């Protein structure tokens, strides 16, 4: 069960986490609790994997280059092909999606040359063509995601 403090931390501190020497104390002061309360509540959220971390969020392509890549693979071969794709350390997400084009993964590399090498290697290893869908523009205004925690 989430306490009110958990819910406040989840919804009110997805952005504007204080850049101050004692940020947890500043949050505690704003919420009328103790620094220990805030540290304990964040630790509980983290231990239960309700937050993955507290820290700076970097938009894609600001560090290195990345592309979303998609392939159409017959269902019978999907796991084999997916394993070959996932074996590359540059691949950091790999999903099966319900579509004729059914294998979707993100490749992150240090520069474009490296990115193209990884994608060419994957095409050769799997013998399926890879459709590259790099980000051309990012429209997301990231103010955090408004969570409905009424039943949480």
């Amino acid at each position, binding site marked *: 069960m989430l306490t009110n403090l958990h819910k406040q*931390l*989840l919804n009110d*501190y*997805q*952005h*504007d*986490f204080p*850049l101050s*020497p*004692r*940020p947890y*104390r500043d949050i505690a002061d704003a919420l009328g609790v103790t620094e220990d309360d805030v*540290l304990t509540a964040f630790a509980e*959220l*983290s231990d*239960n*994997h*309700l*937050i*993955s*971390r*507290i*820290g*700076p*969020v*970097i*938009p894609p392509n600001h*560090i290195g280059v*990345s592309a979303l890549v998609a392939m*159409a693979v017959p269902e019978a071969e999907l*796991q084999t092909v*997916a394993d070959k*794709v*996932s074996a590359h350390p540059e691949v*950091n*997400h*790999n*999903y*099966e*999606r*319900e*579509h004729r*084009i059914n294998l*979707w*993964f*993100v490749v992150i590399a240090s520069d474009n040359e490296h990115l193209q090498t990884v994608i060419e290697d994957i095409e050769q290893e799997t013998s399926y063509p890879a*459709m*590259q*869908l790099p980000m*051309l*523009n*990012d*429209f*997301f*205004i*990231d103010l955090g*995601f408004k*969570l409905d*925690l009424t*039943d949480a």
Partner: protein
Amino acid sequence: MLDDIDRKIIQATQAGLPLTPQPYQAVAEQLGLSADEVMQRLSAMQQSAIIRRIGAVPNHYKLGYRYNGMTVWNIADEIIDEIGQQVGQLEFVSHCYHRPRHLPEWPYNLFAMVHGKSQQEVDSQIQQIKDLLGDKNLGSDVLYSTRILKKTGFRSGGPSTAQNDS
């Protein structure tokens, strides 16, 4: 742009700020810097939009947002920036990107990830995007993830944490 110290600060904080009373001091000690310099550089990177936000990164899947769809739309190139901004502002959209078409098999150039606690909620979100776009929507599809085959990085959890959460 970023220098080596900026990059080190980003690397040192990607797994999360420590849950200790003086987290920036802890990061600074690890890198041989002062806490003031760490905070000042994080602030500068935020102002130059290298850092989008600093805060708690929720695991949507664990919080009950188990239904996610990758919605894809075919929008005329001349208006995609305007339309993309409108879609990106919707509060249930977690990512919104312009990507290239690959004709003939892939006519879609606008990608928006939507998240909900039920299929019904996601269906209603997709309808809201359709209503917003009206006849500017030249075609659309929704791709649901059926299996996570690999997910690495610092975010644990299920499909609704989506690609590149960021």
